[in-house]
């Protein structure tokens, strides 16, 4: 079988299988999960150990842990995905603007991003959330704030890459030709630069997704991300951490789900990277 004209390697298949399984889990959660997401089950003690009817056991207030892990796929993967799309939109628009907008725009945007990048992202997010968190008390409101804050912070990395890629494109003849025949800036961005800049950005999308996914999980784990009663993998680890003291692996299930999902995406990204060599200026690690 071929995907986009390339044959996936064995490790790529493993990655596709893992990610596919999690996406199916997220989309069809109500049909797959044996119990509802946020209902305390009758006659079930807190941290009930795993049994035949509840494979992962119960959480701190007697909810089925397996069902919550399945529903958590929706929240955690969904938020990370939305964040990455938003961060790419902001990052690419700003990056292309810096390239075609002239020297002054480029200098202002680049220096701003330099300073923003010299504060660790988690620390920056904590500072902003310390004030922003209190503004919205509803669950949806706090989710919007969370997605927006992470997307803006993450877009600095996308900005760097898209600027570097577009810099190499903007000097090519066909852009010059478009400019000479009198096309507007917006037209040049949309029809000449963007289609040629996107292919190297695809693998970066996977990497940024992994980063945002782990970032959302870490914030939720610290109690500053997704708010209860929504099932979310990072928050579930925190909620169930005390079960470890009773010798139960309860917090390890959602944590393992996070690890597995990230490994899956990374395996796919590795395969895409091996197909087209990476552009300069891209960073896989941060």
């Amino acid at each position, binding site marked *: 079988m071929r995907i986009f004209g390339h044959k996936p390697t064995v490790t790529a298949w493993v990655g596709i299988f893992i990610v596919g399984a999690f996406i199916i889990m997220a989309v069809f959660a109500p049909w797959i999960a044996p119990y509802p997401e946020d209902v305390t089950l009758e006659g079930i003690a807190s941290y009930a150990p795993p049994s035949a009817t509840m494979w992962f056991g119960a959480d701190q207030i007697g909810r089925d842990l397996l069902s919550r892990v399945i529903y958590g796929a929706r929240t955690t993967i969904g938020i990370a995905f939305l964040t990455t799309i938003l961060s790419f939109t902001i990052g690419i628009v700003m990056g292309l603007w810096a390239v075609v907008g002239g020297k002054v725009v480029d200098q202002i945007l680049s220096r701003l991003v*330099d*300073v*923003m990048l*010299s*504060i*660790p*992202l*988690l*620390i*920056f997010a*904590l*500072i*902003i*959330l*310390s*004030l*922003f*968190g*209190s*503004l919205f*008390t509803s669950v949806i409101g706090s989710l919007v704030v969370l997605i927006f804050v992470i997307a803006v912070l993450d877009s600095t990395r996308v900005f760097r890459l898209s600027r570097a890629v577009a810099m190499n494109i903007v000097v090519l003849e066909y852009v010059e030709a478009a400019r000479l025949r009198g096309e507007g800036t917006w037209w040049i961005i949309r029809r000449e630069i963007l289609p040629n800049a996107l292919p190297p950005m695809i693998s970066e999308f996977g990497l940024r997704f*992994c980063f945002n996914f*782990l970032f959302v*999980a*870490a914030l939720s*784990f*610290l*109690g*500053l991300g997704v708010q209860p009663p929504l099932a979310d993998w*990072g928050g579930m*680890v925190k909620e169930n*951490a005390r079960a*470890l*003291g009773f*010798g139960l*692996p309860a*917090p*390890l299930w959602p*944590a*393992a789900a*996070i*690890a597995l999902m*990230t*490994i899956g995406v*990374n*395996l796919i990204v*590795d395969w895409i990277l091996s197909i087209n060599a990476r552009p300069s200026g891209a960073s*896989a*690690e*941060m």
Partner: protein
Amino acid sequence: MGRTIAIRIVLGLLTLLGVSVLIFAATEILPGDVATAVLGQGATPETVAVFRHELGLDRPAYVRYLEWLFGAIRGDFGFALTNKRDIVKTMSPKLFNTLFLAGYAAIIAVPLAVGLGILAAIKEGKWVDRAANIVSLAAISMPEFFLGYLFIFIFSVKLGWFPSLATVFNSMPFEKRIYTVAMPAVCLTLLVTAHMLRMTRSSVLSIMSQPYIEMAFLKGLSRARVIFVHALPNAAGPIITVVALNLAYLIVGVVVIESVFVYPGIGQFMVDGVTKRDLPVVQACGLVFAAAFVILNTLADVLSVLVNPRLRKPR
């Protein structure tokens, strides 16, 4: 050379200044301020006004920024909103604890990662390289808390070798401290080693594709000799940058790991500050973290100038 280094240091200081503006501004441009955040939405406008005056929030932002900045330079971050204690006094023992944890992890991680990274580059494509690749990919993919709780589950709950909570206090003897902090330190080590190993490997490999390396091979030199005599001196700059970058990453990893092991460090202090909306504490911790980040990056710049003579002339 001295001039280049001086320029780097001045640039670092300027970045630090920019960072302090950004940390201060991030809490200013948002709607609402500390007073409304602390008092909540039910407070009457009069109470908010009185509280704002008490905190000095009714003065212009730039005045408060300058006061805050000069206070910070003198080592005075003011008082915490929640318990009215001097922030610097509360923070300094926690800062020491965090530095101890980070230093502990760094002492193990740096030699391990650089050694294994070079080894993986030498044995490119062989089983050592592949094993290192798979293990480090897995370690990068794991969230910090997964590793932390896995360690607690295996080594303290099941085996009972280490305490699950890394509780330290000032009068603790050194060996006891090393033992108590061992698990969080090893967790951090694994996480940072994975990043550092991959980056070391790729920077050595990128040097290996240079023409002069091909020339050395064509002369018939052994692979080991080419790597140690020809490649490594040139890879030293990138490797130092990699190490500094990852030590900076250690700072962030510390926040989550401290929370897992309930370790009394500055990361926990900051997270507590965020949940209690104690803005002066959050700003102070943020500035300390950001300063450590900037200092490490500047240090990397300076060191790479020192090891690579080609960078000594300003371009």
